[in-house]
């Protein structure tokens, strides 16, 4: 499974990468981008299976990246997990309305990440089965 981790803080990208590896995802298939703009370019040029993105980033924020993904026919079905320090109600609602697949508030634990990821895959599998 190819995963794109998007965050302007290199520390956070590495933390998410570490946790994903800990959960059994292949380190070699995880790639990183430092803002939404670069992420979008990478997503257009390579096939990814999932995006884990921060909200607050320069150039293009996580919510704008999410909207851009949903607006692009070739990317719109991509699962997007938001991992962010933004925990106010309006922002969570905005993310939900934009079609986020999961929302994790920092700081989080490996267990939370695992739980949200399995939920995303369960839902995807369910929608895939009915489609």
């Amino acid at each position, binding site marked *: 499974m190819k995963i794109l981790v998007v*965050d302007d*803080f*290199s*520390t*956070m990208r*590495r*933390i998410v990468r*570490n*946790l994903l590896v*800990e959960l059994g995802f292949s380190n070699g298939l995880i790639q990183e981008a430092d803002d939404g703009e670069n992420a979008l370019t990478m997503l257009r040029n390579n096939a990814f299976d999932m995006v884990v993105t921060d909200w*607050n980033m320069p150039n293009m924020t996580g919510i704008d990246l999410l909207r851009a993904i949903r607006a692009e026919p070739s990317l719109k079905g991509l699962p997007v997990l938001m991992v962010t*320090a933004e925990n106010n109600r309006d922002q969570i609602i905005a993310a939900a309305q934009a079609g986020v697949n999961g929302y994790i508030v*920092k*700081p*989080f*634990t*490996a267990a939370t990440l695992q739980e949200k990821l399995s939920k995303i895959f369960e839902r995807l599998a369910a929608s895939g089965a009915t489609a």
Partner: protein
Amino acid sequence: MNAQVSLMAGEAMPPELHDLLNSADGAAFEKALDALVREREQRVFRALGLLARDLHDAVRRLGGDLAQEGVPGSVADARKHLEDVLEMSSQAAHRSLDFVERMRPQADALAENASAVIDGTSEGEVAHVLAKQSQSFANACRDGLADFVVAQSWQDLSGQRIKKVVNFIGSVENSLLELVSLTGALASGEAAAGPVKVTSQDEADRLLSEFGF
């Protein structure tokens, strides 16, 4: 502040007005009233003019201070210090993550070897007991390392706050410089003096003229 305003609020009514109030000459009364109102207006305008000049002088002095003492420089320093903190904390967090990435394979290998020994020995054997202890130690290490990784997210959370303060300092700095350049006091990056003063006075006068002075 040297503006002195008295709007005759507490003063007694001028005798000529008092006389006019009691006279039957309506035209003379209106004329006198107009003159009185105009005089009041002029006092207010003069007071506002003095206020505007004081404000202008204060901003010009600030401009001079900024240019002489390099306050914008120290503001930039403050921003730089915070950016350094951000960078140092990032490096520290990465070093901690290096440590985790170095230790995790060792914990994995220990768990694997212990498992092999457990399978190859029977209960009661010293090696079996030791292998079991090793296995639980290795598992505890793996859990601890995962927590250790998550704990490094302090750098991201504190770093985001530092970035906000850095941006705030930048906007304060810009506002300050805008205020100063508005008066022209920092025209050539020098303290307000000589020709700069003339320019700023001209600008001040131009500004004042816009307000009808």
